[in-house]
C-alpha cells in the first residue's frame, strides 16, 4: 500500500526561494529591532512577516524532501522542523541583538545533527535529507522567533520572560504575564507547526503547482499571525497590536483570495454554490 507523491515541475528554482526566504526573514526580523531603537512597539508586526517569509521557504523545502517519499507523512517534517527550531530560537534569543543570526547558526547545527542521524544511522539514504533538515530547522527557528517577536515586540530573551501588570493603578513587573512565562510560546509552537505542515500536505498530488502551494503557505502564515496579533494585545500597546491585527487580516484575506483563484485555475471544473431561489408564488 503506497501512495505516490507527485509534485509539479517548473516554477521558481528552490535555491532562489531559499535565498529569498533566508534573507527576507532575517531582514524582516531585524526590522522589529526598530522597536528598541525608537522606543516604540509599532514595528512588532514585522516579526510575523518574517515568519511568513520563512514558512514560504519551508514549504518549498518540504516539497523537495517529501517528493522522495519519507514513509511517515508530510506533517512529521513540520514537527521535526519546529522541534529543532524552538530550541534554537530560544537559545538564540538570549544573545541580544545577535539573536536572529545566532538562531540561524544553532538551528543549522541541530538540523545537521538530525539530518546526519536520519541518513547515516537510521539509514534513510535520501540525498537531500541533511540539507533539507538544516533548512527546515532554520525555518522553524525563524518562525518561532518571528511570531514571538510579534507577540511581545522584541526578540530578546529578557523581553520575552518579563511583562508588566497593572494593579490598582500601580504597574508591577512580573514574569507571569510574558510570552514565555505565560506559555504563549507553546501556542506559537503549534501555530507555526500547523502552518508549515499544512500547505504541501493539502496541495500534493497530480497537478501540484508551485505558485498555488506557496500561496497556501503564505495564507497559513497570515492565518497564524492573526491569533498572535490577538495575543499581542496582552503584551504591547493597543494601537501597535491593532496595526498587527489589521496587517494580518488584510494579508490573510489577500492570500486567501489569490489561493482560491489559483485553485480554480488548476481545477478541472468547479461548482459555485448558490442559494436555492424560492420559486415565485410559493412552492
Amino acid at each position, binding site marked *: 500500500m503506497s501512495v505516490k507523491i507527485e509534485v509539479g515541475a517548473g516554477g521558481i528554482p528552490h535555491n532562489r526561494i531559499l535565498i529569498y526566504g533566508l534573507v527576507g526573514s532575517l531582514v524582516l526580523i531585524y526590522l522589529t529591532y526598530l522597536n528598541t531603537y525608537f522606543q516604540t512597539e509599532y514595528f512588532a508586526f514585522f516579526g510575523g512577516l518574517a515568519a511568513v517569509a520563512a514558512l514560504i521557504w519551508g514549504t518549498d523545502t518540504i516539497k523537495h524532501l517529501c517528493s522522495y517519499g519519507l514513509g511517515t*507523512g508530510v506533517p512529521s517534517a513540520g*514537527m521535526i522542523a519546529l522541534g529543532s527550531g*524552538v*530550541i534554537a530560537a530560544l537559545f538564540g534569543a538570549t544573545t541580544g541583538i545577535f539573536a536572529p543570526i545566532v538562531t540561524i547558526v544553532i538551528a543549522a547545527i541541530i538540523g545537521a545533527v538530525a539530518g546526519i542521524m536520519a541518513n547515516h544511522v537510521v539509514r534513510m539514504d535520501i540525498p537531500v535529507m541533511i540539507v533539507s533538515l538544516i533548512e527546515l530547522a532554520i525555518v522553524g527557528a525563524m518562525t518561532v522567533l518571528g511570531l514571538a517577536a510579534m507577540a511581545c515586540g522584541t526578540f530578546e530573551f529578557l523581553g520575552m520572560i518579563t511583562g508588566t501588570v497593572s494593579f490598582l493603578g500601580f504597574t508591577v513587573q512580573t514574569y507571569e504575564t510574558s510570552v514565555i512565562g505565560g506559555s504563549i510560546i507553546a501556542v506559537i509552537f503549534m501555530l507555526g507547526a500547523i502552518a508549515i505542515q499544512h500547505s504541501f500536505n493539502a496541495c500534493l498530488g497530480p497537478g501540484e503547482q508551485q505558485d498555488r502551494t506557496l500561496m497556501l503557505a503564505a495564507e497559513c502564515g497570515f492565518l497564524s499571525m492573526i491569533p498572535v496579533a490577538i495575543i499581542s494585545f496582552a503584551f504591547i500597546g493597543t494601537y501597535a497590536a491593532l496595526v498587527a491585527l489589521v496587517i494580518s487580516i488584510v494579508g490573510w484575506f489577500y492570500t486567501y483570495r489569490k489561493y482560491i483563484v489559483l485553485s480554480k485555475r488548476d481545477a478541472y471544473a468547479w461548482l459555485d454554490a448558490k442559494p436555492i431561489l424560492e420559486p415565485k408564488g410559493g412552492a
Partner: protein
Amino acid sequence: MSALGGPKQTGGVQSPTAIGIVLSIVLIVVALGLAYFLVQMAGVLALVGIIIGGVLVAFGVHFVPVGGAPAAMGQSPGIATGVAMLAAGAGLAGLFGGAWAAPLGLPVALAGGAVGGGLLMAITCTMVNVIYVFGMGIPAASGKVDKDPITGDTFPEYKSQGTEGHGLPFISWVGGVIGGALGGLGGTLIYLELLDIYQAQLPVLLNATVEQIAPVAISLAGIFAVAMFLINAVLAAYNITGTIEGPHDPKFKRFPRAVVAAAVASAVAGIFAIGLLQLVGVF
C-alpha cells in the same frame, strides 16, 4: 498521511554507517564535556537524564501500532494516523500527567507521566477498535503473524484478501499502552531534568525567588521537553518508515538504530537547553 511507501519499505535492516557511528560517539562525548564545563556535575547528570528520556521516547514509539492512511481504509492494522501525531499525543498526555505531579518528587512524577501516556494510548486503542468493529464492521487480524502471541487467537481466517490485515489485535493494543507509557516516562524525565536546571539558575540570574520565576522555568522546561520529544519521535518514525503493528512486527527489530539516533539528537538538543541561560546578559 499520504507519503507512505518509503524507499526502505521492503529492505532488510541496514546497519548504521561507520561515519554515523563515529560521529554519534564524538557528539555525545562533546555534549557531555560541554555540560560539565557549563554546569559541572549537575549538568552532566541532567544531560544523561535527557539522553535516557530521549532514548525511551524513540524506543517507545516502536511499540505503538501505527496504521497510517491504509488503516483509515481498513487495509492495514493499527491506528489510522502517522507516527509523529500518535507519539505527540501520547507524549503530551504523559507530560501533562508528569508535570502536574512534579512537586511530589521524581518517582511519583515519572509514574504520573507513564500512566498519563499509557492511559491516552489505552483509550485511543480501545476507541479505534470500537470504531473498526462496530462502525466499519471489520474484525481485528494481524498480517504479520498467524497467532496473537498473548491470547493465542489465530488471524488468517479473518484476514481479508488483498490487505495486510486490519483492526487492532490484542498484541497491538498491549504494544500501544507500553509505547505510550515509555513515551510519557521519557518526556517527563526530560521535563524534570530541565526544570531542576532552570529552577537553580533563574533565581540567581534574575535576582528573584523560586516562586517568582516558576512560570518561566516550567514553561521553558515544558516547551523544550515537547521539542525534544518531537525530534526523537520523528527520528523513530523515519526508522519505521510507514506502518508498524507493534512489538511482534518484524520492523520492531530496527529499534537499535533509532535508539542511537535519539541519544545523539537528545544530547545535542539537550546541551543547548541546558546552556540556555549561560549567555543571558552577556551581549
